[in-house]
């Protein structure tokens, strides 16, 4: 692993032990990226603790570990924390760190906007959790359907208000980040880095940013209208108003948000497979086209979350068709990934294990998505544990597995040290088993009639399944603690990584680990979408007879 360790720029040696004043005011995209990621991981831990309490409560029938009021706050907080404060935030962080380096830039286009955009995130998070100290947090699920969130049904608590404010701040922060990413990628590419040579992770970030730009504002609008209802009595979504209008606005954001949480992961998979299979990405152009196909389609499918509200059948048919069509670009990506690995010389490092774990599980989430897209079948599955299983297969088996792959892949670049392999293997296998143990049999609970979001149940027939699920969920918790231990240990005393431990393809591996504040002393020439591999091959040609690699 440790090839030639280049002397690091002195000023960056103690990256992580800067005075707090530097952390608070830095505009360095890498430090901001790290803060995003740390915030994301902390949210993951908190959201995970909520999930464990939920699972304890459901492990047997008729339990009263928490009362229904608290339970409803917990499921809402679990969803909000995981979706808004963990996955989206972590992915913004990893992109914040990697995108400028991957395109050969020195920083983001608007470093101060980046700074403000990041610091709005803790504001948003703190606003949300204020609810717990003011009579109870949001208790209507992460979707917060009106009229349950209206004043008439939430008289005493301020939780809904804090949630709405928190989401407005979050949306503003997301719009700032998206604008910044798009400008950076358009304006700050290194010489030679044409659009046709952008790494797929950067393409994924372009599509994600477009989505968030388009749907962030309607989300904020829905929250503002809801606040008008609650504070000014405007009757937009009340019992006397149009509750379903809220659902339209929310899901116009909510469905693309699913892709905001998975497209960057798709980008990572497209980066990681070629590196460890030692083959170029199969079908670069169709991979990019598929990304934009998903971007377009994802904005035309929102009402598939509303097939039971009683819309016209032709409208339902339209949303069903568009939803099913998403399987086509997703399928292209899947087959291209398999073709990339096909006949390769695959090294099953920990990131690569997570990549294959992702493909094996995300496939299930994709297929159950077809069942859910079919309107008649959806009326049975909607709002049941089948949906809970499906969404965790795409968000956990999908997003979280890609995030894990990304962590193991890029940790050496960010810290200069390898993330321990043995713990990594344990981390992968316990997570893979724990995840499937938790969520696979949830499908059957939904098929048998267990609705989601019920605080408890009296049906003894569901007891055994729920117990297995709860036990498996603690295996997930164990696995995540292995990850955290691994991160802390490796950060302090891991094996030094060198600049390019994986023999990778993209520009971030051309600079030191961690990179200096200005990223590159000189940006390497870019003549394809795998500039680093070009460099390595040129170097190999130059010093031909070196049979034993150092």
């Amino acid at each position, binding site marked *: 692993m440790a090839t030639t360790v280049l002397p690091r720029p002195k000023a960056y040696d103690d990256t992580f032990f800067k005075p707090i004043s530097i952390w608070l005011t830095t505009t360095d995209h890498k430090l901001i990226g790290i803060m995003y990621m740390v915030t994301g991981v902390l949210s993951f831990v908190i959201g995970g603790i909520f999930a464990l309490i939920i699972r304890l409560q459901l492990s047997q029938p008729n339990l009263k570990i928490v009362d*229904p*009021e608290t339970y*409803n706050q917990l499921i809402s907080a679990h969803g909000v924390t995981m979706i808004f404060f963990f996955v989206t935030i972590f992915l913004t962080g990893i992109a914040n760190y990697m995108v400028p380096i991957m395109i050969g830039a020195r920083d983001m286009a608007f470093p101060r906007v980046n700074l403000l955009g990041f610091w709005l995130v803790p504001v948003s998070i703190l606003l949300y959790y204020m609810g717990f100290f003011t009579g109870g947090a949001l208790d209507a699920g992460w979707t917060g*359907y009106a009229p*349950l969130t209206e004043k*008439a049904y939430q008289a005493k608590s301020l939780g809904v208000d804090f949630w709405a404010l928190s989401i407005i701040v979050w949306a503003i922060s997301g719009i700032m980040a998206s604008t910044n990413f798009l400008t950076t990628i358009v304006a700050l590419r290194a010489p030679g880095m044409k659009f046709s040579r952008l790494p797929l992770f950067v393409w994924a970030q372009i599509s994600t940013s477009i989505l968030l730009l388009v749907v962030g504002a309607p989300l904020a609008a829905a929250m503002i209208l809801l606040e008008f209802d609650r504070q000014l009595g405007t009757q937009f979504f009340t*019992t*006397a*108003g149009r509750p*379903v209008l809220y659902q339209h606005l929310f899901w116009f954001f909510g469905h693309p948000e699913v892709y905001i949480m998975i497209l960057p992961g798709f980008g990572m998979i497209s980066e990681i497979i070629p590196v460890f299979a030692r*083959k*170029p*990405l*199969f*079908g*670069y152009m169709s991979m990019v086209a598929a990304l934009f196909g998903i971007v377009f389609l994802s904005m035309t499918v929102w009402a598939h979350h509303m097939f*039971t*509200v*009683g819309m016209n*059948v032709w409208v339902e048919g339209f949303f*069903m*068709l568009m939803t099913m*069509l998403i399987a086509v670009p997703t*399928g292209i990506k*899947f087959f*291209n990934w*398999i*073709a990339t*690995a*096909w*006949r390769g*010389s*695959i*090294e*099953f490092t920990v990131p690569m294990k997570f990549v*294959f774990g992702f493909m094996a599980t995300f*496939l299930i989430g994709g297929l159950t998505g*077809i*069942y859910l*897209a079919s*309107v008649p*079948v*959806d*009326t*049975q599955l909607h*709002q049941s544990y089948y949906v809970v299983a499906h969404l965790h297969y795409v968000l956990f088996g999908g997003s979280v597995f890609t995030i894990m792959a990304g962590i193991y892949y890029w940790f050496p670049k960010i810290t200069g040290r390898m993330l321990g392999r043995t713990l990594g293997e344990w981390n992968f296998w316990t997570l893979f088993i724990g995840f499937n143990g938790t969520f696979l049999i949830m499908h059957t609970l939904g*098929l*048998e*009639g267990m*609705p*989601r*979001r*019920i*605080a*408890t*149940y*009296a*049906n003894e027939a*569901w*007891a055994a399944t729920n117990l297995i699920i709860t036990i498996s969920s603690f295996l997930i918790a164990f696995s995540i603690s292995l990850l955290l231990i691994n991160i802390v240990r490796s950060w302090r005393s891991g094996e030094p990584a060198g600049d390019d431990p994986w023999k990778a393809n993209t520009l971030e591996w051309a600079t030191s680990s961690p990179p200096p504040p200005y990223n590159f002393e000189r940006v390497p020439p870019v003549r394809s979408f795998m500039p680093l591999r070009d460099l390595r091959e040129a170097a190999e040609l130059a010093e031909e007879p070196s049979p034993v690699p150092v």
Partner: protein
Amino acid sequence: MTARVIRVLLTIAGLAALAIALSACDIGGLSPIFPNPVSPNGQDIYNAYLGISVPAIIIFIGVEAALLWVILRYRRSRQPVGYKPPQMHGNTRLEIVWTVIPLIIVLAIAGYSFNTLLKDFQPITNQQLDVTVKGHQFGWVYDYLQYGITVDQEGTLAGDVTPFVVPTHTLVKLRFQGTDVIHSWWVPAISGKTDAVPGYDNFSWLKIDQVGKWRGECAELCGSGHATMQIIVQSMDMADFNNWVAQQKSAGASPSASPNT
């Protein structure tokens, strides 16, 4: 080499055993499909679920097998020393194939589903009995318009709620209304869910040809008593139903219920 082959075989055998164990398992909570439907619209949903399962299972097995093949066959330790993988950047013909085939499959599924949608999911006009189902925090009220009677199904967690009674062999039109927040009426053995939304009427129907009782519950989070909004639908033949109606009318005269709505 042989050790690896044995390991692979053992893994496959283990997976197969697990699958058999799961399918043979008759304990609750592990059914791979909905309960046996007792209403024609539920039967159509059941059939659509089976229909989608055919391509879904084939795709599942095919892709997972391809992944396993890649994992087992193309790992570096299985490749000859110094193996240089073919540096291919794509194959237009292949990419068209795996664009068009999934497209055909999803169009077929969408067409099939849409057919069921047109057939079962529009408000009916040839009903023999009208019932208005009103959801409230936390229970259901059923108004039998023809008979002027009302069933008040106040929720309990244990599910020992007053049954909603329907006659067998009768097409019942259900009109859903929400009186406070949104609720969703769901009895898996009968059909899918229908939301009871404040502000407008939403429709569904049922037609049960056997005598029995089926359980369900509210499927849309509606507040702290959500889990208690249990449902029991009871079907009885016409004679029993008429007796039940007469009984309800005589009982309904005295208590607080005000049936004429």
